[in-house]
């Protein structure tokens, strides 16, 4: 996003990408069925989310380890390809709401952001118009509507979502509304609309979903102001005597050679933890604990979404004649947080919100669908003709509700340099510390109870998803929504960045990824990352114009 905005502002930009080049229009497996892949597409340690997942990278990257402190659990998902996580994300595109920027003022925990919803709203508008987002205005408290004409029309709900919407409205007074997602339901800026087949996670060769390499980089390159250098692993920033960033050191991972490039300004957008790692590894006389770290906050305030899951077979969805219910491959419906009245009445034991998304329906069968309890009678597994009939009858009736909740930063969730371990390039790695706070545990309990009630109302028998250790809450980093490791704030004493993503300590250094978040709402972070990146980039362009940098 920063490269797009800066290049359109007339700034010459060199984009350094640690991974390889990537062309979604040529590399995406669009209409292959799972059986066209090795192991019929099953996930493996090499391709964690399945063979056809577009991502190059994962929780483990060969030769690039990280460590986890004793007693902690943390998984660090990394992309090593042009466009990074935008090739992999779920496309859910939610705005933070007004309350989400005022957590301390409203709830007495966490910190307030140095900006309000009104400050960022124009950038949400710009992002949505540029990348193309479907959704609807529903007038829901703290889930902001977009102005008229900004969003594309949402697709009709899948059958299982329609049932959920009907039941929740009648039985529980809870609204399921159209999802907001970065997938085109109408042509936009030369990109065609979705063809309602083949999962977005495979990449989109027709450019109907949002991925940086298909949507932002081509127009940025067309300005003539952008150069891209892939396989360039940045590991250190440098300073001049006046305390200004002068450039970055990087390793060409195809040759192992080290290089330095000079710039008038540096924008870090390497993902929240990778940006923190680069800062912490950039030590100098003025910054012995890492660049831009006079506050001591770099690497701290690490958060990730709080997720729980409840599954059930829904009898009313069984025995339905076959029909094409693919849609846009992700959920068409979401259940925004509905507990404002309960909170105001003091009946909730946690200060955060969560929303509920739904998976299931008649999507293309994958190996994972069968790695679970299959039909049995009297404890004996079905097979033969009876199994065939049950599989046909039950197809499309399994649903999984997932809660995505906010998190209050705590002192025990952070990352730091583990100087005893280096990656294959000789760069010191990160060590993660992680412990869920009491707020998150209370929220997770509430979510599991709520979603169990929902699937029961839909006619199912709830099964709560548990991890191998018996926990029913996601571990750190598992949801790949980690943010906060170089937070923005109102004062240099307790934050790394000002309200524009500019480092307090180094005025020509900006951060344009999730590291800048001052809090973690329930909403998926990608749209806010893009809006903040746009706002930071505008500020940088203005600073160049005013000759402040």
């Amino acid at each position: 996003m920063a490269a797009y905005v800066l290049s359109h502002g007339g700034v010459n930009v060199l984009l350094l990408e640690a991974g390889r080049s990537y062309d979604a229009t040529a590399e995406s497996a669009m209409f292959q069925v799972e059986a066209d892949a090795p192991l019929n597409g099953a996930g493996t340690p090499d391709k964690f989310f399945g063979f056809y997942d577009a991502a190059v990278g994962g929780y483990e990257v060969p030769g690039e380890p990280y460590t986890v402190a004793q007693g902690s659990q943390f998984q660090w998902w990394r992309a090593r390809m042009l466009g990074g996580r935008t090739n992999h994300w779920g496309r859910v595109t939610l705005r933070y709401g007004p309350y989400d920027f005022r957590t301390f003022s409203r709830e007495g925990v966490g910190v307030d952001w140095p900006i309000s919803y009104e400050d960022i709203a124009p950038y949400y508008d710009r992002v949505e118009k540029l990348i193309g987002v479907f959704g609807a205005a529903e007038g829901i408290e703290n889930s902001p509507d977009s102005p008229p004409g900004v969003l594309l029309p949402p697709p009709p709900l899948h059958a299982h979502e329609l049932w959920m919407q009907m039941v929740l409205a009648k039985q529980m007074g809870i609204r399921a509304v159209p999802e907001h997602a970065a997938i085109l339901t109408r042509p936009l800026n030369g990109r065609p609309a979705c063809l309602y087949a083949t999962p977005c996670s495979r990449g989109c060769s027709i450019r109907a979903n949002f991925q940086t390499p298909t949507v932002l980089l081509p127009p940025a390159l067309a300005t003539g102001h952008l150069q891209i250098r892939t396989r360039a692993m940045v590991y250190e920033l440098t300073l001049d005597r006046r305390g200004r960033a002068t450039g970055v050191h990087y390793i060409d991972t195809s040759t192992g050679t080290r290089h330095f490039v000079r710039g008038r300004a540096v924008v870090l957008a390497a993902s929240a933890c990778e940006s923190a790692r680069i800062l912490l590894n950039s030590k100098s006389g003025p910054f012995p604990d890492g660049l831009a770290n006079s506050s001591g906050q770099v690497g701290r305030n690490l958060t990730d979404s709080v997720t729980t899951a409840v599954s059930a077979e829904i009898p009313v969805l069984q025995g339905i004649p076959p029909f094409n219910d693919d849609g846009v491959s992700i959920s068409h419906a979401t259940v925004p947080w509905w507990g404002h009245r309960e909170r105001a009445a003091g009946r909730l034991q946690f200060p955060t919100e969560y929303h509920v998304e739904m998976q299931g329906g008649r999507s293309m069968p994958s190996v994972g669908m069968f790695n679970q309890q299959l039909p049995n009678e009297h404890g004996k597994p079905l097979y033969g003709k009876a199994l065939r009939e049950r599989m046909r009858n039950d197809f499309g009736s399994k649903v999984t509700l997932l809660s995505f909740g906010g998190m209050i930063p705590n002192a025990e969730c952070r990352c730091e340099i583990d100087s005893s371990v280096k990656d294959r390039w000789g760069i010191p790695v990160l060590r993660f510390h992680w412990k869920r706070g009491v707020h998150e545990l209370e929220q997770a309990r509430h979510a599991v109870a709520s979603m169990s009630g929902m699937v029961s109302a839909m006619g199912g028998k709830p099964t709560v998803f548990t991890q191998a250790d018996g926990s029913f809450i996601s571990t750190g980093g598992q949801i790949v929504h980690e943010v906060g490791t170089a937070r923005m704030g109102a004062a240099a004493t307790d934050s790394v960045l000002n309200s524009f993503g500019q480092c307090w300590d180094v005025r020509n250094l900006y951060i344009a990824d999730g590291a800048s978040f001052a809090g973690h709402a329930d909403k998926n972070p990608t749209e806010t990352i893009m809006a903040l990146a746009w706002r930071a980039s505008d500020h940088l362009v203005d600073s160049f114009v005013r000759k402040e940098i």
Partner: protein
Amino acid sequence: MPAGLVSRRTAVKFASFIALAAHSWSSFPARAVTRSPQGYGTDPNLLKRTVTWPRTLSTRQLLALERLCDIVLPAEPAHPSAAAIGVHVFLDEWVSAPYPQMAADRALILRGLTALDEAAHSELGMVFTAANVSQQAAMFDRLCSTEATAEFSRRLIQLVCAGYYTTREGHAAIGYVGNVALTGFPGPPAEVVRHLDAALKELPQTSVTT
């Protein structure tokens, strides 16, 4: 990123199965493997089905799985059996793959095949593959009901379903009719909406609280 939560379970299973894999054994002689197989790596060509490891089951093991495929998912009008579309070959590819989950499944599957052979020897004085179809079906049925081999039969059924229903033929058999380009998404057909409307009317009016 909901997929992460579900997939983590698989990751944990990968780890817990490493120990099991170390105890892989079988009375069936497997093909000799002369080199250490490699996985397809973290950045394979997604448009090409390249399997980087050899299939390692013996002819008799493969034949046994072929018979079992037809027991688990036999043919029915308009839909081929699992063996007819080569699900047993998928199983060979699966249990030969150089990944921990597949190595664990290999140990489990080969133990099950050995149990079937032992049952055939005991009851019929022959190997499992030499028995006739009804004898094979009866032996598999008994394995499904026997605690010591229930894990094998359940996992075999899972894998046969995975190998079958992820094919185009399997899509037709289960009732998946998507993966075709549309100019617009119409939503569920009117008859499905009527079905849901009717079901909703039957729900009690009582409010459910969270």
